């Protein structure tokens, strides 16, 4: 049972990764990142449950908080990017190249 949850989390993580790699829209990328963060939470909770200690959930909460913060900042940047370029297509924004 325990391993099943972990595998589920891994699947979720991989799907999030796939989304990250294929999305062209910045917001889409943020979505995928949310998904991956969520997968991590699942793992934490699963182990929390397995060991029967509160730490699992405490960490899950921490990660949630950080993910939310990250989403907020990410969105702010996206808005700035949008204001700058009137679109949020990631592939075109290569001004920062070497």
């Amino acid at each position, binding site marked *: 049972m325990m391993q*099943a949850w972990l595998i589920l989390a891994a699947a979720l993580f991989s799907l999030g990764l*796939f989304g990250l790699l294929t999305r062209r829209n910045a917001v889409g990328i943020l979505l995928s990142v949310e*998904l991956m963060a969520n997968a991590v939470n699942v793992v934490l909770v699963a182990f929390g449950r397995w060991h029967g200690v*509160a730490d699992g959930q405490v960490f899950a909460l921490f990660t949630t908080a950080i993910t939310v913060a990250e989403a907020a900042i990410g969105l702010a940047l996206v808005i700035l990017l949008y204001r700058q370029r009137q679109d949020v297509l990631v592939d075109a924004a290569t001004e920062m190249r070497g």
Partner: protein
Amino acid sequence: MMAWIAFGIVAATLLVGAFRVVTARNLVHAVLWLGLTLAMTAAGYVLLEATFLAVMQLLLYTGGVLTLMLFGIMLTRRVEGVEVPNEAANRPRAAALALGVFALFTWAILNTPLPPAGPGGAVTAQQIGHSFLTDHLLAFELLSVLLLAVMVGAIAIARTRDHAPAGQGGHRPGRRVLPKVNQKGGAA
């Protein structure tokens, strides 16, 4: 036996939801599917007897992040919502990589012996609160500082300047404005 069935339902919905989030052509659909996925995770937490967390999950993710994303889409969508499908080209490559990662994780999960199980019993919210203020007090405090910083940062980054930014006239000295990039990606 019942647990497996419940797990099966939750897992299936989760996977379908996640898949749709990633492949939905229309961004709004993607966000909605994300909402569903997050909700089903909350259901998962219930199965894992982490009720407090399930509630928090629903509250934070489905409530907060979802609306945030919707706002994000609204603010940055000029073209009529239709999302052009991703490059066909690198999709298989991305899929391959994702599967690779998945295979790596599953292989790791299956091969590493699980540590001995701890005593059963659900973890109550009281225990979580207690551990917040004892074992992880520092992290807890730091987290509050972080969130404050994020709020200030987000506002500072995205606040609209007091003049219209779009026109070149309003260009404040010293702030280097990147050249306007029109739709086709060429510099204006």
